[in-house]
């Protein structure tokens, strides 16, 4: 509310409500506000990163209704009535997600800048394809770029998590 009152009356705002990591959020956004800025600057969740800003690198990956999108090129109003997952919402009550554990165990990151996007994209993959081949994994993940690891450890981490998740699901 305070939001709208601070703005000039001729400035258009769109009231949106959406779930962010399972909690309902209601706020007014201007049409040109980007999802990345709203999540980082207004809502304070900085796991999502800006890097290339042109939908190539995947550092800004978020899941919207379970599917990966580039927050750097998504208008914030587009998530109205949807559900958004950031890396901060992945652990369950302090217990890391199997993908997070696998990335730690298998050294799936070095500087960590690409990691939130990598983990969220691979979650979307495993949710739709719990037992991917390495080729399927590479195809799905080819839009997530890592400058450090050389990818081998990332692939190992995701494959290990897939195995662990399907054995615990059984």
């Amino acid at each position, binding site marked *: 509310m305070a939001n709208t009152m601070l703005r000039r009356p001729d400035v258009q705002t769109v009231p949106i409500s959406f779930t962010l990591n399972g909690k309902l959020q209601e706020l007014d956004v201007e049409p040109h506000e980007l999802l990345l800025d709203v999540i980082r600057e207004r809502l304070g969740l900085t796991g999502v990163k800006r890097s290339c800003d042109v939908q190539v690198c995947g550092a800004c990956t978020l899941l919207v209704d379970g599917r990966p999108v*580039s927050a750097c090129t998504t208008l914030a109003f587009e998530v109205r009535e949807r559900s958004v997952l950031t890396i901060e919402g992945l652990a369950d009550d302090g217990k890391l997600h199997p993908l997070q554990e696998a990335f730690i165990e298998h050294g799936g990151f070095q500087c960590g800048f690409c990691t939130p996007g990598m983990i969220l994209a691979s979650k979307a993959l495993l949710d739709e394809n719990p037992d991917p081949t390495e080729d399927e994994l590479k195809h799905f*993940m080819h839009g997530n770029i890592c400058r450090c690891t050389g990818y081998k450890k990332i692939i190992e981490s995701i494959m290990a998590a897939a195995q662990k998740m399907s054995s615990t699901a059984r």
Partner: protein
Amino acid sequence: MLRRFRLEEPQSVGEISELLGRFGDSAKLYAGGTELLLAMKEGLVHYERLVNVKGIEGLNEVKQHNGAIYIGALCTHHQLETSPVLKQNLPALVKLEENVANVRVRQVGTLGGNLCFAEPHADPGTLLIALEASLTAEKSNGKREIPAESFFVDAYETALEVDEVLTTIAVPIPAKPSGVCYMKFGYLERPSVGVAVVVNLNADRSVVDDIKIAVGCAGPAPMRVPEAEALLKGKSLDEATRNIVQAGETSGRASQAISDLHGAQDYKEHIVGVLLKRAFHSALSQ
């Protein structure tokens, strides 16, 4: 950084067209935004109004009717790569869609936006030309059909008028026995060369009854190559197979390839020939 704009959210194609007509160059239709927002963030273009079309019902479906597939312009690449109707009838288009951009761009980018932006380094236009698809353009007071072949005018330029909305892409399902293949080559984010072949054989598969060849990405706009088709059409399979190298050279020269970041002109012309040969053989083996 994006500059401020007003958001319009009309509920019908007529209203969209009316807004686009009324505001002219200061308004732009907004679908997935994967191209438009990039251009606006770069400051290359600015619009006072964006007209969001995603509220329009019925434009994000794939339907089959009377031997043709009707694709709503708002279908995302992701919808198309997973569409059961397309998997059944046009697997070559499904394969193309699976390889457009990356998973995030496919999630929100639409087929309509891809065609209307007419960025030269794009895939679907080339295959749609070879498939003799027809595009429906609508405005407040009527609609018209535009053959895919004449839709692309130049780089970033289509046959659409300011107040026209692309609503449907109709693709005739090729009569059997036939083969359809699209192949691309590239090492950057977007394709550098794309070639599409649609071939129809006679009943005992010994004669090339009909063939359509289209080339894209190399030059400013995707195009059909009738000179190359003539070298193969009506020929026995043996003769057509012998002529394919010449058809490839002809297609390369016709492609209007330009030298740029994606490669030199002669290099692209060569790749056109290589891809045509491979696509021809792949189409024959279907």
